């Protein structure tokens, strides 16, 4: 496949005076899970709707496998998507919901049973979706996304409302989809959810991509060779380390993060000065750290408006 799974370039869109998208650009490659993260209102959902041809943009292009969505014949066999798991008719069974979708693509009913089995909904498939838990609806949404066996999968907040079992299942499932060579884009506003799933990360803030890099690169960049030190004699240790030219900061009641000195030098120094310590290790930033650092500027509605403001 020459064209990337999803290619988004320079999307701009305003709702009245509020810019929803302000030059959003990124690509989603086949074979990896790409996490799409950012605070609420950063433009994640709008971007996904634009990719699917649901919302029009003022500027920019969004292509699936090199083509705009409107030109796709049998679109569900090019891209499978889940925008809102609750978007169901409560009186229709899961199987019937998938059946009309299959009919819209000229697919056989057998395909419906296959995807129901894949997401583990077989026993509940003939029940009305009105009685489903949010986790079950998410599974149904995934089944709908898989219906056309597409090379591109795009899911908006698929972890929402899932229990721990469901989250573990979803992680494994997404990774297996990518392992089959599909391009997988998964949005989330919770970093911990994508940390163990995504290989690549697009961080959105104020309507644009403020980072577009591999997860390991992002973490390495945020760690910046810092060393984590665990000691009960914090003040003493910090004095010794500062004297040797390092920068030390207390990060917990018995933990200190040190930068400017390698770990072996720290061990030697503390040993010489008789400072007791129980652990010295390379500090590993979490995606949460990376994310907070990157989005600090981009969070528009901190505290004042804790609710979802994106449309």
């Amino acid at each position, binding site marked *: 496949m020459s064209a990337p799974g999803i290619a988004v370039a320079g999307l701009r869109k305003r709702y009245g005076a509020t810019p929803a998208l302000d030059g959003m650009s990124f690509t989603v490659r086949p074979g990896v899970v790409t996490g799409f993260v950012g605070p609420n209102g950063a433009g994640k959902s709008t971007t996904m*709707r634009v990719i*699917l*041809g*649901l*919302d*029009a943009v003022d500027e920019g292009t969004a292509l699936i496998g090199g083509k705009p*969505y*409107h030109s*796709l*014949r049998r*679109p*569900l066999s090019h891209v499978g*998507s889940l*925008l*809102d798991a*609750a*978007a*169901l*008719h*409560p*009186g*229709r*069974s899961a199987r*019937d*919901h998938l*059946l*009309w*979708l299959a*009919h*819209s*693509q*000229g*697919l*056989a*009913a*057998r*395909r419906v*049973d*296959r995807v129901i*089995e894949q997401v583990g909904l077989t026993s509940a498939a003939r029940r009305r979706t009105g009685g489903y838990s949010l986790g079950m609806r998410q599974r149904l949404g995934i089944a*709908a996304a898989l219906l056309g*066996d597409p090379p591109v999968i795009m899911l908006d907040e698929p972890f929402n409302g899932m229990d721990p079992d469901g989250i573990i299942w979803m992680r494994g499932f997404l990774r297996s989809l990518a392992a089959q060579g599909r391009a997988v884009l998964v949005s989330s506003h919770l970093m911990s959810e994508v940390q163990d799933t995504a290989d690549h990360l697009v961080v959105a803030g104020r309507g644009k991509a403020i980072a577009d890099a591999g997860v390991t690169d992002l973490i390495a960049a945020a760690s910046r060779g810092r060393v984590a030190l665990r000691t009960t004699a914090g003040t003493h240790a910090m004095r010794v380390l500062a004297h040797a030219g390092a920068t030390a900061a207390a990060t917990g009641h018995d933990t200190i993060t040190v930068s400017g000195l390698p770990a072996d030098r720290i061990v030697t120094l503390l040993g010489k000065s008789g400072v007791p310590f129980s652990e010295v290790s390379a500090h590993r930033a979490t995606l949460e750290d990376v994310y907070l650092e990157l989005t600090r500027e981009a969070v528009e509605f901190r505290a004042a408006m804790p609710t979802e403001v994106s449309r």
Partner: protein
Amino acid sequence: MTPATTPYRPGQRAERYGFLQLLHAEWTKFRTVRGWAFGMVAAALMVVLVALLAGTSSDQKGSPSVPIGPGGEPVTDSFYFMHRPLAGNGSITVSVSALRSSVPAGPADLRPGTVPWAKAGIIIKQSTRQGSPYAAIMVTGSHGVRMQDDYVNDTAGLPGPVSAASVRWLRLDRSDDTITGYASADGARWTKVGAVHVRGLGPTAQGGLFVASPPSVHGHGTRVSVSTAVFEDLRVQGHRVGGDWTGDQVGRMRPALHAEWTKIRTVAGPLWLLLGMIAVTVALSAGAVSVVTCTSAGCGGDMTKLSLIGVQLGQALVAILAVLVISGEYGSGLIRTTLTAMPHRATVLAAKAIVLAGVVTAAGTIAVLGSLLAGRLILPRHGFTTALGHPALSLTDGPTLRATAGSILYLILIALFSLGIAAIVRDSATGIGVILGLLYLPPLFSQVIGDPDWQRLLQQMSPMSAGLAVQTTADLRDLPLSPWAGLGVTAGWAAAALMAGGLLIRMRDA
């Protein structure tokens, strides 16, 4: 041991807590949601519906409308078409060296197989519209070379399957309305397969290559097949060629219709609404003809119109169904799934309109004929006999037939009108409120208005008063509009609403 802490007691105490407070809370809930006032009207009608339901149940089976061919018959018209506009006379030649098909062997598992009527060849067609006239020459899965035109004519040519070892050459010549097909095994010696007259190809037709893979009925649904063909040595001679080659799937409508039909039949609401519509229509009509009596000649009155009065109530349920078909999807967000699966929005609205028209035709026919039958059975017992100048209602009577057919058409038009309005306003309660207002308020106003000219104008303009003129069979001179012209007004409302809805659904973000 008693704990030292005193339990928390709320500082504010309600003076009273009872039914009035509950009532107040519910009223606050109600008045703070816009559109619920409209919903109330609908709710009232639903109560009537539930009360009148006779506990009947029926299994409605049917299929959505299909394209209509040049001969007026329903046709199947679905294939992949690589075409360009071809003006005037000329010929197209191509060789086919393979036609392979796959059929489902298991879940999500397509295996090579035989599709006897898989087709690949040359076609000249009026347009890419489904049902338009055409002539084609093709190789098939196991029926050799065939020449076919206008969906019903078929002539056999060279027998035997096509393969790299036995290549088939095909040629289609156009000379005005005459299309001649030739086949050859070597591209040099040609055998004429047939010559056909195809009406309505027009000066510029769409010509090119096509592959078709018919589905077979299998269990609960249709089993798809996929076919591919290898074409070589394509030559176009003579025709003035305009435009580029374009690939198109002819028949985008079919999957959209199939999907919308599946949607409407897999929820209980539409069936109940339609049964309710039949029940209220027949019940009101039967009630109306039960309370009139005739004791001497010259009772007068329009008994056909009276027998069909139930339509005035039944239409409300048709309107509610039509609104819910689309606004229900906006309410739940399902519309996004629909438009993601079927990005051509006008096609989606058209598919919904056709499916809706189909089910309303079925239920409307039962309701209207049921009402007429009630009149036919009940009226004679109340003195409306042939002796007193009232022959039994019969469809052999011209005006009665017009009133009956017109009433069914009226219900269909109300459904389409409501669908259009719902596509514009998107919200269920608002949509139902707007429709019921547009239907029932003008007749009320026209009673209040004193000025006869204004009254007449209102009756001519209102979708219900004008449209139901079609039910009138006596004193036609007193009508503000002739019966068919009146139905035309309703059709105008429906067309305008659907067009505005179609335009908005295309323009707006979903």
